[in-house]
């Protein structure tokens, strides 16, 4: 059991590195979808007998539907409408972002050693995985130019927060977790609408075009 959990955590981190190194948008969206599916699996694997079954199923099912299917579908639609395939000329190149991502993972492991956990034996990799996923998301948002990639970066960041939240399923009320998932869905949905308008207004999804407001 533990080995499966550890394996999933490692896969999540591998997906992070892939995201930072990949320029093809289709591959990036698929990888984000895969990460969503991994998170859903984690929600099931980490559930202890003390958890209410309905609650665990809600979280895992919600993550699967929203993160692994619906949002990737939305993003695929966006790139098809805009007819774009690649992230060209990112602000930070692919190799430097990969190096930064690797450094982030190392730092996440160092940082989480100093923080006390309620059940450390179960969650050796949880906190570092969560923090390095958050870091990957932040990197994607600030270092990429396409609006779609920035929205995906936000999603990856939220994935990191979600992993962390798995530590807390037993005392987060269902209502709050459902609210968090729905908020995320709505946020990406609104982003999708704005992306659609950006595409129509500028005939491009480069946020370079969004640079007329400054002091």
């Amino acid at each position, binding site marked *: 059991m533990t080995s499966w959990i550890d394996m999933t955590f490692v896969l999540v981190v591998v997906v992070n590195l892939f995201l930072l190194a990949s320029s093809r948008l289709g591959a990036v969206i698929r990888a984000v979808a895969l990460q969503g599916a991994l998170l859903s699996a984690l929600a099931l694997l980490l559930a202890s007998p003390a958890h209410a079954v309905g609650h665990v199923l809600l979280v895992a099912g919600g993550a699967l539907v929203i993160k692994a299917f619906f949002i990737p579908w939305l993003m695929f639609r966006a790139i098809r409408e805009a007819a774009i395939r690649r992230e060209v000329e990112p602000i930070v190149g692919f190799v430097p972002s990969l190096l930064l991502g690797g450094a982030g993972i190392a730092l996440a492991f160092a940082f989480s050693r100093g923080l006390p*956990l309620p059940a450390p034996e179960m969650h050796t990799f949880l906190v570092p995985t969560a923090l390095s996923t*958050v870091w990957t998301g932040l990197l994607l948002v600030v270092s990429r130019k396409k609006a779609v990639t920035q929205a995906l970066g936000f999603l990856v*960041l939220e994935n990191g927060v979600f992993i962390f939240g798995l*530590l807390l399923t037993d005392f987060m009320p269902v209502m*709050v977790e459902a609210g*968090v998932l729905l908020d995320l869905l709505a946020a990406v949905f609104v982003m999708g609408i704005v992306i659609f308008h950006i595409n129509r207004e500028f005939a491009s999804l480069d946020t370079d075009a969004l640079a007329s407001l400054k002091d």
Partner: protein
Amino acid sequence: MAVTLVILVPLALAAAALAWPDARSRPWLLLAGAGAHAAGMVALWLRPEPPLAEGYLFLDAAGKVVLSTTSALFLATAVYAQGYLRRRPEKDNRVFVSGLLGLLAAMTVVGLAQHLGILWVAIELTTLATAPLIYFNRNARSLEAAWKYLLVSSLGIALALLGTFFIALSGAGPGGPRSLLVGALVEAGPGLSKPWVRAAFVFLLVGYGTKMGLAPLHSWKPDAYGEAPGILGALLAGGVTNVAFLSLARVFQVTRAAGEAAFACDALIGLGLLSMALAAVFMAGQRDFKRMLAYSSVEHMGILAIGLGLGGGAVAGAFYHVLNNGLAKGVLFLTAGNIHRAYGSKRVDEVRGASRRLPLSGPLFFAGFLAVTGTPPFSPFWSEFVILNGALGKGRYAVGGLFILFLAVVFVGMGATVLKVVQGDDRGAPERPGFADSWLTAGPPLALLASVLALGLWLPAPLAALFRSAAALMGGS
């Protein structure tokens, strides 16, 4: 009863606005929502209600300050919207009206929330309700502003969620509260795990600080305030940023109870001073008078953070300032919107002679400037004075000195811009025909200014007591 009224009525009306077929009569729903909310708040003042939904929702003193401000400001903007939306029949107001009502409901939940999870959900909803509204003008510039606002706020909010989880974890040890209810966390106090509380405060300061627009997390603000209609600017600067401040204050409550107050106070004062300094720099020579108001908002969020961070009497001053800044920002944004309408431009080098062309809005814009920069006898003078007094009383002379210095620089910088807009001869300045001051568009800012003046001349005893009890929650007096 009244608690459900102030949340559910705006929410129901927001849904109704989406379905409402007639664009001309749709803005009436705003007035209905504002009226119901104000009535609910009056009821809550007269007869406080016990905690609702297992203690998740409860109107304490701090929430009361913020929600009363929000309610008054929303009422004024709802009246203004009747005139404003009637003048812009070419724009579809369906999403706009619905979004504003949704925003009111979300802000109300933030004000009432005693559970950090619910609080987070509601804060995120304020972002989602407002982002599409920034795009009301349907042009490239407003689209850019909407995207930046959405992305920056969402990032901030995501980090705040992580911080919220950290707080939850700090109370997850043996004997911990295992809850996100503010009351339970404060009660557990020193029992919370300190490293987690400290990390949580950093993340939540960044997250809710982004929503407040504290420097250096303010990058969305000038763009959003510059491009959004005046109504939305008023509600962002006087409503959303205030509820974000309240969220930060709730986190501060927990951090203080856990014995990490010194660290949190230093961070708040540092960011507060930085915000004031940055606003002072960018306000001078600002070429767009709506963007100038954004920097004024950065400045005043800095003042609130300093007031909270100083502790003691300054905290009551900060809550007093929540009210004053909210009302004064309403005056400024609504009149700036009128001036923008009448000239078709918001560039300082083009707009001049506003007090001639708009005999009400022009002078009101100027008076709003005097009020917001803390000129006596307007009420912001008193709240800033209380905060300054708190700094000097605690021997924080450097903080007090910088506070006065930045206020003075802002006064000069903002004054130069405002005078250019208001004074002079309007002949030859760009013109957009068909707009003149009317009671619907100039009346609400006039009423807000009158209340800022009245509060400066006489502060009712129940209000003063309310600020003190709100401060007491945060460890002030």
